[in-house]
C-alpha cells in the first residue's frame, strides 16, 4: 500500500520536478531581461552602458562558464591565475559587444517559447524577438551555476560561445594559454 503510494508519488514527481526546473529557469531569465532593459533605459547614454550593465550582467550571466566553454579542453592547461585573467578579459569583451546592440529608447518585444531541457541542470529557452521591426530567433542557454545563470546566447542559429570557441581554440593550438590571453587583451584594447 505504502509502496504503491510512494511509487505513484515518484512517477508524479519526476516530470513535475523537470517542468519545475524549466519554469524556474524561464522565470529567472524573464526577470533578468527585465532588469537589464530597465537599467539600459535609465542609462540613456550609450557610452556609459557597458559600465552600468556590468553589475547586472554579472548577476545573471556566468562568465566563468562562458569563458571555460569558449576556450574548450585547453582550459585545463590554464593556471588558476590565467583562468581568472581570461575570464576577466572575456567578460569585458562580451559586455562591450552586448552593450553596443542597445539603442536607448528602443524596446524589443520578446515572446518566450516552451523551454527545453537538453541535459540535467541545463535549460534552453527559445524566444522570438522583434527589434526595430525585424524578427530574431534567440535561444538563451542556461545552467545551474549557483542558481540559474545564462551561459550562451544563440542568435539566428549563431552561438556566441561556439563563435569564440573557433577563434580561441586556434589561438590555443598556436601558443597555449598565453596566446589566448594576449589575443583577448588585444581585442579588448582595440579602439571602438
Amino acid at each position, binding site marked *: 500500500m505504502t509502496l504503491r503510494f510512494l511509487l505513484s508519488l515518484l512517477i508524479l514527481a519526476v516530470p513535475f520536478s523537470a517542468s519545475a526546473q524549466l519554469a524556474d529557469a524561464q522565470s529567472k531569465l524573464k526577470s533578468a531581461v527585465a532588469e537589464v532593459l530597465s537599467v539600459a533605459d535609465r542609462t540613456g547614454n550609450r557610452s556609459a552602458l557597458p559600465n552600468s550593465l556590468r553589475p547586472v550582467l554579472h548577476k545573471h550571466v556566468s562568465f566563468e562558464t562562458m569563458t*571555460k566553454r569558449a576556450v*574548450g*579542453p*585547453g582550459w585545463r592547461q590554464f593556471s588558476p591565475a590565467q583562468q581568472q585573467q581570461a575570464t576577466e578579459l572575456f567578460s569585458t569583451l562580451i559586455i562591450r559587444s552586448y552593450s*553596443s546592440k542597445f539603442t536607448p529608447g528602443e524596446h524589443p518585444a520578446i515572446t518566450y517559447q516552451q523551454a527545453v531541457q537538453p541535459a540535467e541542470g541545463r535549460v534552453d529557452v527559445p524566444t522570438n524577438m522583434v527589434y526595430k521591426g525585424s524578427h530574431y530567433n534567440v535561444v538563451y542557454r542556461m545552467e545551474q551555476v549557483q542558481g540559474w545563470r545564462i551561459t550562451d546566447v544563440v542568435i539566428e*542559429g549563431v552561438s556566441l560561445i*561556439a*563563435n569564440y570557441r573557433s577563434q580561441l581554440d586556434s589561438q590555443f593550438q598556436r601558443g597555449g594559454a598565453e596566446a589566448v590571453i594576449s589575443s583577448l587583451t588585444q581585442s579588448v584594447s582595440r579602439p*571602438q
Partner: protein
Amino acid sequence: MKYHTSTLRLLLLAVSPLLTDCSMTAAKKASQPMALAETATAAPKGKGAAAAAKVGPTKAEEEVDEYAASADIYDPLQGLNRATFFINDKLYTLIFRPIAKGYNFILPRPVRKGIDNAFENAKYPVRVVNCTLQGKFKRAGQETAKFAVNTVGGVVGIFRPAEKIPSLANLPDEDTGQTLAKWGIPHGAYIVLPLLGPCSLRDTVGLAGDYALNPVNWPYLYWFGSRSKHDWIVAPPAANTLRTIPTQIDKYDTITKDAVDPYLSARSAYSQSREEAAKR
C-alpha cells in the same frame, strides 16, 4: 538576343565544374570530422592521449564539449580567403561605410524600412520557388498568402499588414542555397567572395539562382548584352544593392568588431547560420 543565350551557356559551363568539385570535396569532408575530433581531444600536444585518458570523461564532461562538434566548414583556401577578407575589409571601410552613413543620414528610418519591405516583398519568387523545390508546399502557400496580403494591403509591400496574421508573420527565409543543401549537396569549400564576403561553392551557385529568381533583376538579365539601350534597367538592381549596404555593414560589424580573429569569427557565424537556415 543571340549574345544573351551564349552568355547563359557560358554561365552554366562555369558552374558545372563547381558542382563536380562539391561532390569530390564531400568525400574529403567526410574524413574531416574525425581529424577534428582527434585534435580536439588531444589538444595538449606533448602530453597527448595518455593525459586525456587519465583525466577521464568527468572533466571532459565538465567543459560540455558540444561546441567542439559545432558547425564548421572545410577551408582549404584559407590563405587566399584571408587575403580577400582583408581587401574586403578595406573596401567596406573606404567605400561601403560612407555610403551606408550617407544613406542612413538622408533617409529617415521609416522610409528605409518601407524600401526594405518592398524589395523583400518583391523577392517572393525566390522564396516560393525554393519552398516548392524543397517540398515545403504548406510554406509555399503561406508565402503566397503573405505576398498577396502585403502587395494589396501594404501598397506593393511597403507596409507589412501580414505581420498581424500570426500564421504569416516571421516565416523563415528560403533561398536557393538552402534548396541545394536540402538536396544533399554539401558546402564544398568555404570561399570569401570579393565584396560579397563569406560563401561556399554551393552557396555561390545558390546566389546565382537567387539573383535569377529575383524579379528586380529580370529586366537587366533580359537586356543584358543586347544592343538596345534601356538605361533604366539598371535602376532597380542598383537600388536593391544600395538599400542592403547599411544592413550588411551592420552585420559585418557585429560579427567582427569584438572578435579575437575576425576572419574565423565571420567563418563560424556563416557556417552556423547556414546550418540553422537549412534546418528551418
